[in-house]
């Protein structure tokens, strides 16, 4: 790490991929000691711009200068030598799980020639300890990385960037998987690094966070730089407007709940969650609040029969059901939109039509026992319209769609099976602001059709916008129930952090 004053400047960067102009004449700058926010909807080009800076992509046009001197960055190795490093969002991809923390941290030292020949464990351990100490991270350097928690892996990744001399560090959505406590620890680390003279580029979808930690902001849209401000000069609403290119419309919540319970759970327990009692009415959107690790995902999976309840009772539409496995849950009328969209929710390599009909395939079998392809395509295009999925053709691969459209497909899959209860686990994770609005609207529409919705999320503002009623989870239990109209972020957070516990 150096403490001198550097000025990194990208000028008129353009980059085209086949069929898309990913970057159009983008200029961007950051200085030592600055924490600079880079925001934009998905597809705005912020990741591409950072790939150019970190050497993963090479620009068609434009220059990158450090202190006025033009740089040639054509590979990640070039960038690292100059002192620019990127901490990836997908920490698991960047680390080697069966190597120790120390070995992972020193990985780049092996490749750049700092450590050559016989390298003793002691040297690894020493360098790694130093790097972790600057982060004030309490992680044993001899642990294997696969045994670490996500937040710890992220710190290891940052330590790995810092073990060499760094001038600029790019953090790509570092807080997305972190709990609140972990986030605030990360922030103190980032602040300390900035004080030491590192320039930091901070990519995030969570605007609140940016105001907490960043000094200045660059906003991108459609491959262009829209504006650059000091964060004290621009209001949150204005940032969102510039990201979207239009005003944010709030979803008007209409009363649609009807007093019949579609889902009743009584004292249900399994290895992950305990003593769950809850109800969902037809037409009601019920929030499951809680921090990361509170048991939200586990509750969702239990309701879907994936990790079944061992005790307690579940009634759907007034009938007691045993949800032994996902098939039983689907038959009972429950659908799950899982948290890990690409891994669990959609079939990346299959078409939109095949994804939409996957759970309802038996409805598309003709009397010869064969799949009725025409009926499938017809129904799929109808649903694509209804759900507002942006595709050119229902035969398009789902993997090619944006996160928001993928999520609409994951939700749409259950609408073809006519579920009465839809469980959504972090449905807006990794989805940009515009698509979030679409998903809220979609959920509102489902509630109006008298479906019961369970909506699990750790985004407080989302709970307050979307839901009618909220259950707060802490340590695998439901600790609080409230009408959304009667609560606030502070109250929810109080219970979610165990405030109501004696």
């Amino acid at each position, binding site marked *: 790490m150096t403490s001198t004053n550097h000025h990194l400047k990208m000028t008129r960067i353009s980059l085209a991929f*086949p*069929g898309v102009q990913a970057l159009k004449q983008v200029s961007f700058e950051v200085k030592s000691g600055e924490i600079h926010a880079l925001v934009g909807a998905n597809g705005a080009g912020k990741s591409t711009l950072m790939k150019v800076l970190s050497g993963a992509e090479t620009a068609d046009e434009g220059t990158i200068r450090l202190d006025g001197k033009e740089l040639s960055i054509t590979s990640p190795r070039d960038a690292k030598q100059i002192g620019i490093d990127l901490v990836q969002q997908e920490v698991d991809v960047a680390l080697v799980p069966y190597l120790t923390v120390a070995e992972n941290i020193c990985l780049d030292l092996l490749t750049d020639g700092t450590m050559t020949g016989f390298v003793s464990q002691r040297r690894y351990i020493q360098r790694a300890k130093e790097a972790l100490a600057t982060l004030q991270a309490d992680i044993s350097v001899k642990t294997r990385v696969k045994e670490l928690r996500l937040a710890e892996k992220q710190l290891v990744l940052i330590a790995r960037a810092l073990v060499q001399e760094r001038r600029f560090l790019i953090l790509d959505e570092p807080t997305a998987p972190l709990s609140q406590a972990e986030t605030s620890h990360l922030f103190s680390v980032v602040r300390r690094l900035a004080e030491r003279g590192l320039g930091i580029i901070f990519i995030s979808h969570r605007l609140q966070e940016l105001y907490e930690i960043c000094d200045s902001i660059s906003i991108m849209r459609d491959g262009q730089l829209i504006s650059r401000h000091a964060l004290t000069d621009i209001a949150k609403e204005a940032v969102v407007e510039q990201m979207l290119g239009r005003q944010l419309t709030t979803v008007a919540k209409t009363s649609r709940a009807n007093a019949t319970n579609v889902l009743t759970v009584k004292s249900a327990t399994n290895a992950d969650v305990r003593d769950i009692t809850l109800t969902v009415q037809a037409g009601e959107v019920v929030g499951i609040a809680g921090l990361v690790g509170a048991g939200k995902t586990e509750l969702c999976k239990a309701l*879907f029969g*994936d990790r079944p309840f061992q005790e307690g009772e579940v009634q759907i539409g007034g009938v007691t059901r045993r949800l032994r496995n*996902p*098939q039983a*849950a*689907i038959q009972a009328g429950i659908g*799950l939109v*899982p948290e890990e969209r690409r*891994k*669990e*929710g*959609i*079939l*990346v*390599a*299959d078409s939109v039509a*095949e994804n939409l009909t*996957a*759970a309802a*395939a*038996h409805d*598309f*079998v003709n009397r010869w*026992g*064969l*799949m009725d*392809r025409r009926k499938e395509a017809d129904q799929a295009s109808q649903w694509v319209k209804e759900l507002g999925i942006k595709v050119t053709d229902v035969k398009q*691969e789902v993997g*090619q769609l944006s996160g928001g459209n993928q999520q609409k497909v994951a939700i749409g*899959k259950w609408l073809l099976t006519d579920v009465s209860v839809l469980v959504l686990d972090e449905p807006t994770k990794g989805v940009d602001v515009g698509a979030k609005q679409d998903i809220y609207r979609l959920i509102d529409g489902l509630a109006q059709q008298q479906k019961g919705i369970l909506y699990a999320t750790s985004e407080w503002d989302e709970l307050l916008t979307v839901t009618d009623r909220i259950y707060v989870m802490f340590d695998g239990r439901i600790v609080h129930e409230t009408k959304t109209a009667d609560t606030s972020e502070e109250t929810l957070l109080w219970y979610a952090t165990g405030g109501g516990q004696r």
Partner: protein
Amino acid sequence: MNEVVSKRTNRGKGLRPVLGFLNDWGIVLAILALVLFFATTAPTFLQGTNLINILRSISIVTIIAIGLTVSLTVNGFDLSVGSTATLASSFVVSFFVWYSLPLGVSIGLALLLSLSVALVNILLIVWFKIPDLFATLATMFIVEGVAMTYTGGGSISAGMPRLDGTPTVGTIPEAFAKISQAPWIIVIMLVVVAVTHVFLSHTRHGRFLYIIGGNPEAARLTGIRVNRYRALAYLIAGLLAAIGGILLASQVGSSQINAGSGYLMPAVAAAFIGSSFAGQGKPNALGTLVGACLVGILENGLVMLSVPYYSLNIIKGLVLAVALATTYARYRKK
């Protein structure tokens, strides 16, 4: 492995449409080129009897390869198909020669007993969660050994005494030998290909197999009974391998040691070559048939050109390497 051979994507300007076309129809072009080459260098190549000969010779490979294809759809891999074929051929011949069982009973019993291999595979893969390749590598050796032990380490043919000296009285029925004659063996092959094609491409069960191959976790959370379908895939692979083995016994008229193991490699080649057929980008029955044709034509033509049989494996192995290279190169680009 249909995750690996995932579908072709966007075709942009310039060379891409050409490359895309080559990718989708390259096998057909290769077959045409081979036919043209052999037709000019070996005059008898294009004669009707030789073409029938080629179809006959690829029938067994195709049937075994189709079974392998089904295991590939769930992103599995059944290495034990060759030794399953050996086992089935030992069973069926022994039933005729040692026990003088009637035709139908012998074939039925041989198929049934050979399915036990699939059950072991299912136990190892679905129950013990051993990766497919390793599990079936183990069963491949086990079954090879079982077949050899059962036959007493030798071949079985009519009139030959058993290893302990017991004389045998059974004979191989004439009708059994007929099965492997043209046109029957070709008809059986085409029926297997057609039925499997319809099953994989036009039923929801086939759809589910591909979905499982693409993403088992998402498949499970869609309510698909992943384990049952994987078991089904291995059952089908085992059944078709056993049918291949019985046809093999019919063709040879006896049971030979490790007779089926030579079919593994060309079957793998056929299935992989075929996965890019017509832009499918995933293991599929029609493609496998076309892939088997390519391998069969190559082999037949080379024999006609007097390439010694012991050198053929070099060429067949190269063809497999090229097929795999094109499949995986595409994946890497994506």
